[in-house]
């Protein structure tokens, strides 16, 4: 026997060495020998159901399923013999006996695994000459349709729903030839509507309500964009025809999310075509917003701004949590250089300056960055989650945490005021009173007294016996936070995820806690939107320049002044709430809102609002835009090229997928306004702006090759102490769920339809 953990075997005459425990089918794949299969799916439990992967193994009398047999020392395998070919042919023929050959009208036609297998391994003609059993198509949810005759019962959907999503909405019903996939709720799905079942279906049995019968796969161009909803930064490969997005999926596993997408990434793109989308600039004429030309609108803005400048009026700027890094960067330049103000802010949902400030004081800045990429959750030995609810607010992170639990034995510690769904994967779950998370963290960090907590845990080891069954609910155990602390302190290399419940000094305590744990502790701060993290990094703060450098730091400011050839204000400006208060007092002469809806968070008396000059650029007429003097129609993220930074701090490139004729990108608008104000920002070329960001923003000197290749690069803007005026009350997460999303989700037909027809409200989904 070999000494190390590798196994030597022969496949089709080729000697290969793979790690012990590798499944034979994976060993074959490792040397590019294709073994056809339907039911086998990497990282889901094995089924041995489709019988397509039968191979010959010496000394075994019967053909064996390559998907269930682990490699063994000296094993001799043949995948290319007449017996194997015959077995594949007949199995393929069996699969086609009841499969309707409606490929010409089937959504899957052209990208169907059964089609591919039949072409490669099947027979030219079928011998089955009996009637097929027809069953009418069923609609299980607004977005999930099931066509039983097409189903080949590979049970992938059942497993990805259960094992992958921990939703368990699908099951198998009846037996024998009447076997069928069915929703466990009977005739409809009670689930998170992620659409993974549709995505993973090898045939056209499960089809998407948002996509079905709209086009053929080869008629679309497929563009890798970054999802514009939550902060996880999933790549959604958009199928685009005639400049319109028709489908979102990530079947090619091209992003940090692999093939995972939630309802928003998969279906939410249709807000871009909503009837209420702004098509032309609007100007308030005689008290009403009326369409005007772009030239008219932009010139009006510049003229009014110049007048306000001459009168010494104060400006305010609110940036976007969805605009691209390049746009946010140029926006703060416009504010500081052109408008001469530090009154700039954004909707804050993660207290990143405090995190970086706290980390600066520790030794954590040593060898490896103290930030964790999303993928690191799949292999982490332990994860501590404080606050937030990744299942509904950060679906990719939840998917990765579950992945780690299932496949890497990750021990998850949850500290929360609610029994959130991830409790089912929790090694220890401590429930504290709402708002007590910070105090609990301080206790864990050895800085304060114990906090009352209800502790629960899933049973030891046994619970993972059946991957096919839902994990049991954790059972109450004694010990409270003391026991939680004792268990946590045994861990090393912990990834800590924290929600908006922790801010200000709580985060300092969290970093102190992380410093007490062995190995390297890494952090993920949960931020709401697709570029919330990027907005913070790009300096959309009244007291921070890009890269968390202080505006009052003469050296840092001097660098940017030299770069732009201009004087920048040195005094910290007003934050979002202070700007709203100033508006209310009539002390803010102009407010420029880019892709944000601040009046929803900080309402201002409309009568007072009229006294200032409000410019809003957005996709829709939001609450804020309705009060504006000038409304500029902007482009959605799917219509732009540039970079975004996800909640973990991973920078990724997104590409323009669709077009919107009436709109301009935020970058184009900002550049145009700057030029009209007499400052030339150059061509509105995202690549040029990103080059500047790479050169001048701390942490952003990432490899453009890596980004161009579709991978992510962790931006770590650790920069020593961050002299930031902490404002915990401004850390306000929307707590958007899978089915709601600030201003975009409400314009998505697919998400609205799902919401309207759901029997359970999101929080009730289990």
């Amino acid at each position, binding site marked *: 026997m070999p000494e190390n953990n590798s196994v030597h075997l022969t496949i089709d005459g080729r000697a290969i060495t793979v790690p012990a425990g590798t499944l034979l089918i994976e060993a074959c794949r490792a040397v590019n020998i294709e073994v056809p299969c339907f039911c086998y799916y990497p990282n889901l439990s*094995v*089924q*041995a*159901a*489709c*019988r*397509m992967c*039968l191979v010959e193994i010496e000394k075994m*009398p*019967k*053909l064996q399923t390559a998907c*269930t047999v682990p490699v063994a020392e000296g094993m001799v395998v043949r995948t290319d013999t007449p017996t194997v070919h*015959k*077995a594949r042919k*007949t*199995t393929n023929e*069996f*699969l086609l*006996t*009841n499969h309707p050959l409606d490929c010409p009208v089937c959504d899957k036609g052209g990208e169907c695994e059964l089609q591919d297998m039949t072409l490669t391994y099947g027979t030219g003609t079928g*011998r*089955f*000459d*009996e*009637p097929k059993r027809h069953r009418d198509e069923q609609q299980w949810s607004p977005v999930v349709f099931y066509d039983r005759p097409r189903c*080949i*019962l590979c049970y992938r959907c059942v497993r990805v729903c259960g094992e992958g999503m921990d939703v368990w909405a699908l099951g*198998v019903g*009846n*037996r*024998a*030839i*009447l*076997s069928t996939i069915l929703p466990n709720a009977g005739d409809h799905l009670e689930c998170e509507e992620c659409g993974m079942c549709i995505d993973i279906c090898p045939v056209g049995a499960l089809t998407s309500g948002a996509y079905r019968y709209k086009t053929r796969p080869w008629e679309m161009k497929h563009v890798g964009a970054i999802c514009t909803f939550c902060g996880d930064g999933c790549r959604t490969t958009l199928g685009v025809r005639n400049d319109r997005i028709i489908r979102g999926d990530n079947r090619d596993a091209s992003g940090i999310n692999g093939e995972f997408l939630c309802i928003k990434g998969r279906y939410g793109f249709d807000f871009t075509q909503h009837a209420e989308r702004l098509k032309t600039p609007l100007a308030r004429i005689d008290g009403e917003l009326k369409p005007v030309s772009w030239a008219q609108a932009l010139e009006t803005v510049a003229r009014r701004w110049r007048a306000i400048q001459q009168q010494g009026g104060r400006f305010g700027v609110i940036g976007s949590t969805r605009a691209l890094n390049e746009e946010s960067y140029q926006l703060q330049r416009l504010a500081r250089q052109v408008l001469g103000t530090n009154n700039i802010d954004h909707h804050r949902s993660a207290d990143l300056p405090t995190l970086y400030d706290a980390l600066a004081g520790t030794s954590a800045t040593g060898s490896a960055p103290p930030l964790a990429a999303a993928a690191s959750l799949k292999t982490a030995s332990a994860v501590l989650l404080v606050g937030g609810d990744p299942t509904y607010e950060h679906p990719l992170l939840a998917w990765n945490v579950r992945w780690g639990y299932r496949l890497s034995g990750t021990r998850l510690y949850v500290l929360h005021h609610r029994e959130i769904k991830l409790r089912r994967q929790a090694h220890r779950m401590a429930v504290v009173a709402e708002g007590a998370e910070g105090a609990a963290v301080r206790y864990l960090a050895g800085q304060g007294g114990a906090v009352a907590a209800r502790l629960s845990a899933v049973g030891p080891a046994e619970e993972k*016996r*059946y991957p*096919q*069954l839902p994990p049991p609910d954790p059972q109450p155990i004694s010990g409270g936070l003391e026991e939680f602390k004792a268990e946590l302190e045994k861990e090393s290399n912990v990834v800590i995820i924290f929600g908006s419940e922790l801010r200000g000094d709580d985060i300092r305590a969290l970093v102190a806690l992380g410093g007490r744990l062995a190995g390297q502790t890494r952090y993920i701060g949960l931020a709401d939107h697709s570029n919330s993290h990027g907005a913070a990094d790009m300096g959309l703060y009244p007291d921070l320049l890009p890269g968390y450098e202080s505006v009052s730091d003469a050296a840092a400011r001097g660098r940017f002044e030299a770069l732009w050839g201009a004087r920048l204000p040195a005094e910290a400006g007003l934050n979002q709430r202070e700007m709203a208060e100033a508006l209310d007092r009539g002390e803010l002469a102009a407010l420029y809102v880019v892709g944000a809806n601040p009046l929803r968070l900080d309402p201002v008396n409309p009568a007072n609002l009229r006294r200032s000059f409000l410019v809003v650029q957005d996709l829709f007429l939001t609450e804020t835009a309705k009060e504006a003097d000038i409304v500029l129609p902007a482009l959605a993220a799917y219509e732009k090229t540039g970079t975004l930074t996800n909640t973990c701090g991973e920078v990724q490139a997104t590409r323009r997928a669709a077009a919107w004729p009436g709109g301009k990108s935020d970058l184009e608008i900002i550049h145009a306004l700057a030029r009209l104000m007499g400052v030339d920002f150059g061509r509105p070329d995202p690549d040029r702006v990103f080059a500047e960001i790479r050169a001048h923003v701390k942490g952003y000197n990432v490899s453009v090759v890596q980004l161009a290749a579709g991978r992510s690069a962790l931006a770590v803007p650790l920069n020593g102490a961050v002299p930031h005026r902490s404002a915990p009350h401004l850390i306000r997460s929307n707590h958007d769920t899978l089915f709601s999303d600030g201003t975009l989700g409400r314009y998505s037909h697919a998400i609205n339809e799902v919401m309207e027809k759901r029997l359970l409200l999101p929080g009730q989904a289990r």
Partner: protein
Amino acid sequence: MAHPLEIRVVSKRFDDPSAATLKGYLASDGYKALEKALKMKPEAIIEEVKTSALRGRGGAGFPTGLKWSFIPRQSPKPKYVVCNADESEPGTCKDRLIMQFDPFSLLEGMAIAGIAIGAERGFIYVRGEYRYLIDILDRAIAEAYDAGYLGKKLRGTNFHFDLMTHTGAGAYECGEESALLESLEGKRGIPRIKPPFPATSGLYGCPTVINNVETLASVPHIILNGGEWFLKLGLPKAGGVKLTCLSGHVHNPGVYELPLGFPMRRLIEEIGGGVQGGALKAVVPGGSSTPLLNAEEALGVNLDFDSVAKLGSFLGSGGVVVVNDRTCMVKFAKRIIHFYRHESCGWCVPCREGTNWLELTLTRFHLGGGRSEDIDVMFDVAQSILGRTLCALGDAAAMPTISIIQKWRQEFEDHLAGRPCPYEREFAHA
């Protein structure tokens, strides 16, 4: 009443109506074996069973002592004894009699198995259609608990054995041991991927012995009278006697306990009273899943595992079905495949789709819509199910079909010539 050629061991109490009560059972040597086993070392019990050469009576014929010895002696997990009372093979009707007339022998056998492997809990998985037997078994279990033959501290010793019944829900597939375990755990009755085998990971992932009713009911007799005694009743490699279920076209159908190696000819002619309604055409030797024997083969074979295997068939569960020469073998094949199509669990493709294909084609063929190429297609379809499925149900469906097409191909040809079924026309008024 016992036939003179029978040697009654498991069935010895079948004619005694009181044996189903504890009092009656104790009066006829009941629980003496358990008392003996309680004083034996567990290894010695397994050795005795090995000596008896008892082979599983459920169909596969796996040596019982060997199966028990696979159970790890030291296990951090609990161990279980499960009785497979899901008797559902067409042609088999023996276990029901044991449970009906001699339920305590099963209880005693399971307790002994528990002592032998170190299990403290057992389950009897009874097919749902045997509803009436559940009542009998539950009554017997209650009596045994009251008398200390079940429960904690068996007869005052340090052995514990708890036992309960569990009802199946009407699936043939749940007679397959791993599907049975799934069903017993409350899940869909679909077979598991093996390995691991139940001996290491069975019920709830714990070491488990699964035996047929007749196998377990034989155990008390083996312990009481010795393995040697049992062995000598039958053949060297297959000890003892076996319940044989004779049915079909014979004058005296019934369940007869015969020594292994008993000639089929004597079974049909002397015990069965000869073929009814015509001459012998075929015999199903061991339940509907076994390949059929033609008349010549059947009359020359002895009823033991190896002799039947030499003819390419199996002794199976002991369900002998006699078929006379007025039977249309196409229809016979159709009837068998109808059963398997209905009972396939549907999990894996060849069995689910193949049985459906075969039934549809056989039905059309029998009704007169056959084409000459159908015969080869059916043969190939059955061959393509064989050996390619997750459990043995696919084989069970394929084997009889293959044997019928091989041995009675002429009848298929006849159907092509004289449509519809020439046999039904000929014997319509017989």
